């Protein structure tokens, strides 16, 4: 514990970098997911096909391979990204591939007659989306999307492997320094603390997700699922 207190400024800088990657990634992938997720429900086969290929490819290839490709292979094409951008881009591509699927599923979960009634009322397409479809699809989107958010926050730790001095990397450096200077190995404690910090950050989102879910469903009588009746 003493060790953490002594190095807290350094570790905090790593945590700041982690949050920075997370923020950039979340903003970009949310934007892409929203736009392409809606586009994935249009009638045009070509548009749908291209988006399908994109999501399937990035969901099938391990995230770490994806990030390594951007960091190690893109330079061959003359695009040398600094580690921070490489990680952010890799996570954004992966996050939006998953996000598109979530948004698409959410929109498709809205009952067909909602479209027809909105159309019959003479609403314009954007009005249908904005006032009818989006609010209702949120019920399906929010729980999965907050899950994706926590996964993206966790995945920022990949930065350590390409040399971004984010949270995990700073923790590793603190361990190395201590081992060299004092001859003790604090790996257990330091990694324990790192786990705990990630746990707290991600738990906040899990709680937020449950709260939002309850609010979105507050107008419905929530069916008591058998999971809850068997075990709480």
């Amino acid at each position, binding site marked *: 514990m003493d060790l953490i207190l002594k190095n807290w400024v350094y570790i905090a800088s790593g945590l700041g970098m982690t949050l920075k990657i997370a923020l950039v990634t979340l903003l970009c992938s949310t934007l892409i997911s929203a736009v392409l997720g809606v586009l994935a429900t249009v009638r045009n086969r070509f548009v749908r096909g291209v988006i399908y290929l994109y999501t399937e*490819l990035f969901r*099938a*290839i*391990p*995230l*770490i*391979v994806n990030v*390594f*490709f951007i960091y*190690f*292979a893109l330079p*061959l*094409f003359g695009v040398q990204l600094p580690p921070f951008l490489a990680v952010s881009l890799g996570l954004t591509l992966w996050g939006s591939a998953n996000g598109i699927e979530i948004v698409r599923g959410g929109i498709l979960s809205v009952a067909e007659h909602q479209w027809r009634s909105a159309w019959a009322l003479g609403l314009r397409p954007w009005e249908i989306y904005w006032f009818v479809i989006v609010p209702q699809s949120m019920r399906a989107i929010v729980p999965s999307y907050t899950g994706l958010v*926590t996964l993206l926050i*966790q*995945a*920022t*730790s*990949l930065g*350590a*492997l390409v040399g971004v001095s984010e949270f*995990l990397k700073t923790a*590793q450096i603190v*361990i190395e320094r201590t081992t060299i200077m004092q001859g003790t*190995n*604090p*790996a*257990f404690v*330091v*990694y*324990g603390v*790192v*786990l705990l910090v*990630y*746990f707290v950050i*991600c*738990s906040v989102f*899990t709680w937020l997700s449950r709260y939002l879910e309850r609010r979105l469903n507050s107008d419905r009588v929530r069916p008591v*699922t*058998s*999971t809850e*009746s*068997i*075990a709480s």
Partner: protein
Amino acid sequence: MSFDPNYLYAQWPALLNGLGMTVLVSVIALIASVVIGIIGAACRVLRIPVLSQLVVGYVELIRNTPILVQLFFIFYGLPSIGVQFSLFWSGVVCLSVWAGAYQVENIRGGLSTVEHGMREAAISLRLSTRQYLRLVALPIAFRSSLPALVNTSVSMLKNSSYLQAIGLAELTYVAVDRIATDFRALEMFAAIGVIYVSLVVLLSLAAQRLEHRLHRPFRT
């Protein structure tokens, strides 16, 4: 930089070794994670006092922390309190523990689809709780949780690539290692990209066939 198929041909044995390691680690971890999942789900459904809460804590902890940190904790952290695994077993333990947490929830979800009448029928047939779980609930639950089990298994297969971070010679490690010496990144990434996608597709196809077979008694 041009694509050189001859290079890939020359490196084929190395990649095959990596692929073997990836498959081996994944298969062992898959079996272990399903076992963890069944035990954990049973603890929760039967509401065994202390164990049930421990399982909840375990699931929450694993799901809310990065697998990479879990891996480093197991490989570098645990030895300082006297728990040491070899490189290979660290990888297996990490993947099993990670996937196990998700499998607990998957199997618990599957168990929740078993109707309550089944339990009553089992009680009236004087089956013990253990017999009920083994003979009635788990077989039914397995069917309905199979898609979720496969999803988690696919994620685990992909996550085996994290093991390169501790130096386990699996597929990604082999590729990155070769790139560091030969600088032929394009060929290597193309190769492992194709291999990972094929593995995922193969696993999904196998799961589909299994699902089809398991539903045979219910088709008319």
